[in-house]
Each structure stands twice: as C-alpha cells, then as structure tokens.
C-alpha cells in the first residue's frame, strides 16, 4: 500500500475512533469565527443532526476542510466559507466526518451554545444569501444588457 493512501486511511481512523477530537484550524477562510491556530472541537454526529448553519468537517483527498452548511439535501451538503462568499462546495454525505462544536483561542472557549457562535452562523448565512442575490442581479443585468 502506498504511504499516501495509508496516511489517508489512518486519518479517517483517527477521526472515526473517537466521538470528539481536539484539532487545530489552519487558514483564513472561516474568519472571523475560526482563525489560523484556533483549537477546534469536532464531534462525530449522525447525518440527521446536521443543520443548515453548522460547521462540518469532511474528507477531501488527504485534507479535512471545515466549512459552513448552507443547504442540506438528501445525500449531500452545499458548503461555503464565511470569508470566501463567492465559492461553494458540494459534499457527499459519506464524506462528512463531523461537526465543529467549539473553538478555543487564547485559552477562551466558545461553543455552539454561545451567542457569538450563533451570531457567526447567522452572519455566515446572511452573507451566503446576499452573495446569491447579488449574483442573481448581475446575471439579470447581463441578460437585460443593463449597464
């Protein structure tokens, strides 16, 4: 077996073994809620427990991105990043590994139960819908040849 494949399988085993994992977030895509270096708690949850607005972690090749759910279909999720509103990702149900339930930054914990977490979800969804509306207006203008 090739080392890359073994590593990917080991990662999945690592995520699947425990119901809750303490991990580190990398990147700027989920600012302001998640920043580079934040500790994030990811819990294994059933498909039925996932809601629009949640942050989910999923499998993509040898990476494990964390993004916000903006639409839930029967067997897939539409995801986006709070800080990259123009991009979307379709993720199959079998690739979803867990849901982020808390972050820790500078020793301060913020969880799903906190108002700031909920506000970030509401803000993220608002950005998504605003972005969609703006995109629709642009397409309409282009169609009608408006300046």
């Amino acid at each position, binding site marked *: *077996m090739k080392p890359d494949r073994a*590593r990917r399988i080991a990662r999945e085993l690592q995520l699947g073994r425990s119901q809750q994992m303490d991990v580190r977030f990398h990147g700027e895509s989920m600012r302001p809620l998640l920043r580079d270096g934040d500790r994030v708690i990811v819990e294994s949850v059933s498909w039925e427990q996932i809601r629009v607005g949640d942050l989910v972690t999923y499998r993509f090749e040898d990476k494990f991105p964390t*993004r916000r759910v903006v639409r839930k279909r029967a067997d897939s999720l539409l995801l986006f990043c709070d800080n990259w509103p123009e991009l979307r990702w379709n993720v199959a149900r079998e690739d979803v590994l867990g849901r*982020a339930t808390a972050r820790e930054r500078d020793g301060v914990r913020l969880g799903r139960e906190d108002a700031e977490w909920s506000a970030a979800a509401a803000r993220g969804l608002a950005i998504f819908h605003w972005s969609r509306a703006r995109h629709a207006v642009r397409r309409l203008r282009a169609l009608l040849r408006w300046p």
Partner: protein
Amino acid sequence: MQAYVVNRDKVTAQVIDDEAVILHADTSEYFGLNQSATWLWMRMDTPRTAAELIAAIAARYRHAAADVGQDVEDFLSRLTQATLIVPVEGAASPAEPGDAPDESHPRDGYEPPQLVKFGHLETLILSGE
C-alpha cells in the same frame, strides 16, 4: 499456553484490498500490513497461539509449518513490541467456522507477513482552504 489478541483498547484498523492499515491511539503511529499479515491479523480478533497461526498460514499457502514458523514468530514479536497485539494466557479460542485453514482454496505467492511503520500522525489540522 500463551495466545495473542488484537489490542482493541489501543488500536483501530481498516482492511482495504486485503491490506490493513492500523492506527495506535496512544502513539498516533500508523502501520500497514501486507496480505498474509492482514490475514493473520484478522485471525487475532480472538486469542490465537503462535502454533495455531503458523499451522493456519502454512495450510493457506501450502507451505510446511517449519518454513513459515520463523516468519510468523518475527511478525508476532514486532506486533507485540508495537503493542498492537497483547499476549494473553490461557487456552486458545475454539475454532470458529471460517477459521479453519482453507485447504480447499489454498493461495499461491506466499510472502512473509510484514508490518510496516508508515509514520506518526501529528495533530490533525483542519484546513478551510
């Protein structure tokens, strides 16, 4: 008589295409097994003595037990050192259907059972990018 069993409290494994990947929860080390090793690994879901494992794999690959004995002993030693299996005292488990050497469907191409240490998983990094 000493038997060996998978250290279920500490390890988790997945078998794909007859080859296993094993993750040790305490050390975050991950390992790979070749086909013959994976077959032995799966036998150790319940306690098995070295003699049982040697007899089983010898029958599977149509080799004399003496030819594969040292390979299996070395393999068990490496698994034990890595605490992927643990020795247990007592009689081996009674044979279960499917555990008997499958002499009606022997395999060719015996390769000594191998445990490969691939590496160590660092703290998982979630990348949004």
